[in-house]
Each structure stands twice: as structure tokens, then as C-alpha cells.
């Protein structure tokens, strides 16, 4: 492959390519790892035309927007529903103190457009769920910088649903970054209750080719929810300062301030919870309740710093750039590594591996997922367990078998009609090995489970 003068390829003036001299070394020169199909200059064209969607304009999102603009992408859209809070300023570098209260997506888009000339960034201040399939179909690559597992699952299911094997462009690579990382919990390990795990130096970046490689749903056990403290501990035998705070949050507020909607951003509300928790802790001789801990527990705060966001976002955008330009092999090629975990609290350690696609993945697989249940438990108990099982995490499930409706969350008439089933034991409703379909208002798809009775 011969080297080609970049100016020959550029449709702009020579001067406009002068700005991209650094980038053009890679777009016009083949490397030791590029494949034989590498075409000098093709990447320049692709960067001009590709439409890329960024989900999240927070800590990761700010970095992602900056990185993509300086990777030569020209058409970027960004979605975020949040407004700027003062506690964002220690890492979300596109925002200033005077921006507090404004929409993140708008401020971030305007800032990067102004700094990097020639890039068009279109913000949408709202929820990803507001948009339909036609909207998502318009993009070539999606990059996610979210802190919510639920939003990730939604966009993942949407992108899997868009894939039409007949239409090449319907397959949109999803590059996903996260800093809230928890390593997969081993089942026999006791998960201690703690408000702040040392997660601030950790993160992960991965690439998903919907329907082809392991998807967010296949990886759900990597994001196991924190074990909840039993209500009876909070109510009768608190031992930790966090138990007292949860008590104030869940029980005391309901009893004493039922008519006021709890706003975790209202300092008066946090102060009230703190004082309640503090008094309860004193009663039980439990030391350690602080205002900061109260805020941390109630808002489920995860420590976050700029440098970790920079690492995760850099890794994600590097993959997006390689996918778009073919300048080097990317993570997520079938049968190759697709997942990088980064840990920086004890030296630096990365683990880059292939997360396997699951045949029984409710989103991208075609087999029902096997779940072991106790046939003597009630449907009610099963419904509750669906919220907690790491592989399900469904909070408002509607359940049916091939023949009958077991439980419907809505409409009210159907809910009322199916409610008596909640008290029935599972073996009275389904047979051993029977498949059920579960839907949840948070997701557009059905989850298929095969219920196997414990022997």
C-alpha cells in the first residue's frame, strides 16, 4: 500500500487538512496491523459522513464529545436529560459555575462546537426513551457514557431490535463505557454493606456488535446490584450508621413527612434525614453518622474523578475511531476481545478479554434462560426475586405462559383479575421446565425464562 498525499484526497482546501496533519498520518498510512483492505484516505471520507450518537453528557460524556470532535468526527448528536449541579464541576470540564442549572447536553454541545471548528453537535435534552426506532436508525455508531444500568439495557435492547440481517446499515456498533464498575460477585461471597466502595479508580470499556457479539444483557451479571439490607434490620436491629440513614430515608420519612416528596437535592431534606439518623444512631450507640455519609447513602453516590473518566472515555473513543476509519483492528470483532476492565487503585491493571455471547440471553439469544426456583414459593415471592436476581433485575414484571396470564401490572382490571395468582404456589401455576415470558415497562422486549424446580 503506497502512501498518498492527504491534500489530494481532501475535498476541502489544503489549509483545512493542515489542521488534521496528526490525524492524517494514520488515515493515509497503512500500519503493521491494518488489513490488506486499508485504503489511504478512505477514513477521511468516512469521518465526514458518519453520524455518531453520544448518550450521556456527564463525566464520561464531556470527555467523549471532546475526544470525538478531535478524532475528526463531524456529525455528532448527544442526549442527556440532566441539568448541571455544582458537584459536577470537579470533573465535567465543559461546565462552569455560571452554568449550574442549565441542561448538560446543550452546554456541552455548544462548548465543543465553539472550541473545535467544523464539528456539528446536536443536543437533545430529554430521555433516550423519548426517541423511536427511526431516530436511532439514523446513526452509524452509538457511544454510551452512562451511570445507569437501566438506560444501558434500554438502548442495548433497542439496537438489537433494529438489526435486520438484510440491511447492512441496521447494525450499529455500541461502544459502552462505565466507571461504576463492580467485579462479578461470586455467589458464595458475602457482600458487605458499605456506602462507598473504592470504585473511583476503576472502569470498563467494551464494544458490542448487536446480535453478533455479547450484549449488555449478556453481561448483566457484571453489574450485580448491591445486596439490599433487610427491612427488619433497619426497623429493629440497626448496627451500622448506614442502617440508621436508610431507616430515616425509608421508614421515618414515610411516617413523619409523607406529604412532602423527598428531594435528595434539597439541603433541608438531607439535613432532616441526617438529624433523624443521627438521633437513632445515638439511641443504639452507633457511631459514625455524618452529613456527607447521609448524602452518599440517600443519593447512592459513587465517587468520581476526572482522570478515571478520561481513561474510560479515551478507550471508548479509540474504539469508535478504529471502527469508523479502519486504521487498526478494534475490540469486538467476532471471536476476539471485546471488553477491557481497568483498575487503578493498586498500581494499574487491565484485563482485556472476550465476553461470550449467551445463547439464552433474553435480548440477543434465542433460548429461554434457565432459572432454578422453589416450586413451593408463591408467585409473589418469585415476582420479588426478579428484581434482585442479577440476571434479571426486573422491577415491575408482567408474567405469562404460553397459555395463561399469571400476573399483569396493568391495566388495573387485568391486575385485579390476576392478583389472586400472587398467593398461589409456583407449582400450582406452571409445570417443571415450563417457559414463561416476562415483560417490564422499562424495556420494550420480552424476557424468556425456563422455570426449573429445585429438587
Amino acid at each position, binding site marked *: 500500500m503506497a502512501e498518498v498525499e492527504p491534500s489530494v484526497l481532501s475535498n476541502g482546501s489544503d489549509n483545512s487538512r493542515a489542521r488534521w496533519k496528526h490525524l492524517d498520518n494514520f488515515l493515509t498510512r497503512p500500519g503493521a496491523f491494518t488489513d490488506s483492505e486499508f485504503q489511504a484516505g478512505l477514513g477521511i471520507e468516512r469521518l465526514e459522513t458518519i453520524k455518531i450518537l453520544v448518550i450521556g453528557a456527564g463525566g464520561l460524556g464531556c470527555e467523549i464529545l471532546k475526544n470525538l470532535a478531535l478524532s475528526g468526527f463531524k456529525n455528532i448528536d448527544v442526549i442527556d436529560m440532566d441539568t448541571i449541579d455544582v458537584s459536577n464541576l470537579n470533573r465535567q470540564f465543559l461546565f462552569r459555575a455560571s452554568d449550574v442549572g442549565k441542561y448538560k447536553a446543550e452546554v456541552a454541545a455548544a462548548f465543543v462546537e465553539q472550541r473545535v471548528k467544523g464539528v456539528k453537535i446536536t443536543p437533545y435534552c430529554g430521555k433516550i426513551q423519548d426517541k423511536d426506532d427511526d431516530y436511532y436508525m439514523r446513526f452509524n455508531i452509538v457511544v454510551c457514557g452512562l451511570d445507569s444500568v437501566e438506560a444501558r439495557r434500554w438502548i442495548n435492547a433497542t439496537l438489537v431490535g433494529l438489526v435486520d440481517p438484510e440491511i447492512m446499515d441496521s447494525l450499529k456498533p455500541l461502544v459502552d463505557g462505565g466507571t461504576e464498575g463492580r467485579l462479578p460477585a461470586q455467589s458464595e461471597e458475602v457482600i458487605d454493606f458499605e456506602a462507598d466502595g473504592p470504585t473511583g479508580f476503576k472502569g470498563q*470499556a467494551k464494544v458490542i456488535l448487536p446480535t453478533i457479539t455479547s450484549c449488555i444483557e449478556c453481561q448483566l451479571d457484571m453489574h450485580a446490584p448491591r445486596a439490599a439490607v433487610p427491612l427488619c434490620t433497619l426497623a429493629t436491629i440497626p448496627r451500622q450508621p448506614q442502617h440508621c440513614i436508610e431507616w430515616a430515608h425509608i421508614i421515618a420519612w414515610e411516617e413523619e413527612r409523607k406529604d412532602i416528596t423527598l428531594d435528595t437535592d434539597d439541603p433541608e431534606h438531607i439535613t432532616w434525614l441526617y438529624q433523624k439518623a443521627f438521633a437513632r444512631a445515638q439511641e443504639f450507640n452507633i457511631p459514625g453518622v455524618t452529613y456527607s455519609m447521609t448524602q452518599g447513602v440517600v443519593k447512592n453516590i459513587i465517587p468520581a474523578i476526572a482522570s478515571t473518566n478520561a481513561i474510560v472515555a479515551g478507550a471508548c473513543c479509540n474504539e469508535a475511531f478504529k471502527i469508523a476509519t479502519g486504521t487498526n483492528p478494534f475490540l469486538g470483532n467476532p471471536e476476539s476481545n471485546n471488553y477491557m476492565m481497568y483498575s487503578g487503585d493498586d498500581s494499574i491493571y487491565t484485563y482485556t478479554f472476550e465476553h461470550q455471547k449467551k445463547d439464552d440471553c433474553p435480548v440477543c439469544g434465542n433460548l429461554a434462560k434457565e432459572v432454578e426456583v422453589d416450586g413451593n414459593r408463591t408467585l409473589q415471592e418469585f415476582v420479588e426475586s426478579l428484581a434482585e436476581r442479577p440476571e434479571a433485575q426486573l422491577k415491575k414484571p408482567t408474567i405469562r405462559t404460553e397459555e395463561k396470564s399469571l400476573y399483569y401490572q396493568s391495566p388495573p382490571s387485568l391486575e385485579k383479575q390476576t392478583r389472586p395468582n400472587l398467593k398461589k404456589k409456583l407449582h400450582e401455576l406452571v409445570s417443571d421446565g415450563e417457559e414463561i415470558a416476562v415483560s417490564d415497562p422499562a424495556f420494550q422486549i420480552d424476557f424468556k425464562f425456563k422455570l426449573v424446580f429445585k429438587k
Partner: protein
Amino acid sequence: MGDVTPPPLQGPTAKEKKYDRQLRLWAASGQAALEDAHILLINSGPGVVGVEALKNLVLPGIGQFTILDSSVVAEEDLGVNFFLDESCLGGFRAEHCCNFLKELNPDVQGNFVTEPLQSFITKPNALQPFTLILVTSPVVPEILATISVYAQQHAIPAFYTHSVGFYSHFSLLLPPAFPIVETHPDPETTTNLQLLTPWPALSKLAEEKTHGLDSMIDDDHGHVPYVLLLLYYLGRWKASHNGLVPQSYSEKTAFRDLVRSGERTKTAEGGEENFDEAAKAVLKTLNPSAPGSSVKEVFAAEECQNLTKDSANFWVIAHAVSTFHQTHSVLPLPGAVPDMKARSKDYIELQNVYKSKAREDVAEVLATVRSLEKELGRSIPIDEKEVEAFCKGAGYIKLVRGRPFHIARPNEMVKWGDRARFAAGALENPDSLILLYIAFLAYDSFVASHLIDALGGAQKVPGLDAAEPDTQKMIGIAEAIIDSLLNEASRFIKDPEYSEIKHASARFVEEIVRAGGSELHNIAALTGGMVAQEVIKVITKQYVPVDNTCLFDGIASKTSVLRL
């Protein structure tokens, strides 16, 4: 509990609000250390990685930074550096980056120097104001050597960074002894309950709370804290095993079965959570609490053995803790108790037994510290809090021995010294990125011997104009480095392995030459993130920094840390 502070009437301060998410990682003490820091960035090449690192340090509020860079902003800077825009063209890069970085945080003071590095560095005390130095390549070998020597002599941490295309590297030069007390180990894996060596107050509590265990009503039986259950069953085990505790794996599993046999399974829940916790804790907690290798290294260190009047506080406390360990065969008790199924009152009682013992241990260590201070004739007493923090983290203290940078010069091979054997061994490990490190050494060697013009102007990076001719030269330099390393390590690698190593080396080199010295913004941003994390760890003396070289491969998306 005793005296308690009344709840404050107003919430956190403005600063606590702004830094809330990071104070949860390094607390007020770490933040104070950051605010005392003054970082010098010696910026060269495209100059992105250094500025990105600074961004991640300005945001959390370091005290001051200074950018030293004499280059002028050109069109190509605008396509790769976020802290420049069109209004900066033709101006000093240092000045404009400094101004844009300062916008990120009004609490941070930013300075810039546009004097050429060559003349700046020769001035007396030029480096004196700085508490940490970041150098980005390319830089003249003599200057890098000057900085390396200065950093070692003055115990100032220094970083040397490459960001070239899809690859990056940094080496961290720490002081000859860099001890860390607050390593923040994972609380789930580091609980130390000293169940094999219970002290009288703990044994007494266990006897009290497990008295008549078998005849307790279900509700009581299900609420005995698991720590006390384990002590109870250990007593029973010892009675039938000549007073010995379970040691081998099979003994521990047998002991676990013994614990399980006490569980009542006909309860409303079909089992007991406290017994479940006890059984699960057997393998994790019934280990003799011998200090780990990094703690032994601290005890064995010359600085710990031979204290002087001027020894750092760390060494005086380490000596006292080592004396404690000699006397009791265990380290001071950390005193933390994990949450467990228990009634509030019982749990608090148990927690207090651990806390009192921890306080006693601290008192004993403190007494030794005081007598050492007297013996040595030290005038300023060590703060009790420092001793307390040391005892709390004693099991996980860490000592890093800083080492100088490798300086690659043309016509002179890098010396690997006592790391030659390790480095030569790494050549055959496919997971190691040592060949990428060697490619960067070759890069430095190339740059040091090539100038853009004959007038002693700027240095020329490989692949600047065209890749092909420089690639062959670079492959030759890298192979010479490999051969010299093997030679120094007295190691011979046969074919086909030897050819495979050379082939892999050539591929790294080829990819580096392709870059023509250019930075890719993504890699610069990612590497700037890694460097900033390490800077924060070094400045706050919390968490464990890289020892001492880190490489990133943006093609495979993986890192490799080497001690060189």
C-alpha cells in the same frame, strides 16, 4: 460513645460541595496535599498528553501548575489539542493552554514559561519551586538525565511520558524510599479479626454470648454474631484436637462442617443467617495473621533497622510496629468489624471489644515511639494520629523504591542493571509489552541523533516525512537494544523464538514510525488520565502507584506494568 458533637445546622461548605465526589476517595488530608502541590509540565512534541494530564489535576484542585513550552501555536495544534482555538494561532502554546486550563477551576494558580528548555534548565535552582515534574517526549537525553538526577537528589517525583499514535508509555521516578500507609485495600478481602489469637476480653465475650447455645430459643440462637460462633466452635474443636486449631484445608472444611452442624434448619426461614455467615467466613478468617511480603520488606529495610535522629516519621513508627510484632507475633489489631447478623446491642459490644484492643495496641506502639524519640534525641514528637493511622493499616503498608529513568542515547546502550534478568525474561512473555518499551527507547535514540536541519534546530522524529526509510533504521536500533539486553542478562534465546521476538519488535516499531511523532487525541487523553491518577496517588500518598513503568497498547487496548 460518650460525648457526641451536635448535628450542624447548615450543610457542607461550598468547597465540600464542589469536591464531594473526590473527597469520598482521598478525604480532606488528600485534598490538602493536592492543594500544596506545584506541578511543572515540560511540554514537547505535539504536547497533548501533558496538557490532558494537567486538565485532570486542575479539576480536582491542585495548588499550582507551570507549563514550560517554547513552541508557537500552529494550525495542526488545533486538530489535536482541546485547550487551544483559532484565536491562539501564532501565540505561545504554553500561555494559551495555561489560560484555558485555568478556566476549569478558579482555585488553581497557573503559570507558564516560554524560555527554551535548554537555557531554563541551566539556571541555578530552576526546578526548586516544583513538587512534581512531568516531562513529555521528545527531550534531549542530557536534559532528561539532568532532571532524573535532580529528582532523585531532591526526592521529587518525576514522570517521563510518550504518546505516539496508538501507543503510549510513562515511567515514574519516585524517591529512593516511598512508603505508603493509606493503601486503601479492599475491605471485603482484608478483614483481620485475629480469631486464632483471641485476647481475654474477646474470649470472655464469646463465652458469655454463646453460653447455653444449644438450649437458646430460636430467636436468640439466630442472632449470635458469627464471630462469636466461630470462637465457640474453635473452643470445641481444640478440645478434641490436642488444643490445636484447624490448619490444613481439609481440617478447615471439617471445621466448617462442624459449624454447619449447629445450624437450626427447621426455623421459619429454613436456616440461620448467622450460621451461614460463620460457615462462609471459615476459609477467609482462620488464617494466622502473618504479615505479608511488603510489610516484611518494610521491617527489613535498612532505614527501619537503623534509625537516626533525622529518620522520617514513617521509619520510627515502622520500627515500633516491628518491635510490637516481635513481642506478640501479630501486627496491631486494625479494630474494624464487618457487618453481620446480630442484635444492635451485641454487635456494638463486639465492636467495642475490638476497638478497645486496637486502642491498647496503638498505646503500646506509641509508648515505643516515644522511647525511641527520646533515645534518638528527636525534638518534635510524632503526632499520635499518625501512629494510629499506621497501626490501622499496618497489614497493608507498602514501600516503593524509586529508580532512575532509562536514558536512551545514540551509540550508548541502555543499562538494565539488576533488572536485566527480569527484562530479558519478559521478552518471551507474550502478555508483556516490554517490546513496546524497547520501541520507545529506539524512538528516543533515533530522535537524539536526527535533527530537522543541520543548524542544530529541532529534533526529527522517525516517520516525520515518510515512514519507509526510517522504519528500517528504527528496526535496527530496537534489535540492537534487544541483543544488548540479552547480553547483559547473559541469556541466549534460540530460534524460532528469537526470530519471533524480532518480528514482534519490528511490528511495534513500524506502527510507531507510521505516527511520524503524531499524537492521537484519544490516546493522549487516556494516557493523561492514567498519569493524572498516578500523580494524585503520589501526591496524596494514598493508594498504590505504578512501580515504575506503564505501557498502553491502543490496538489491543491493554496495559502492562514493568519494574525496570
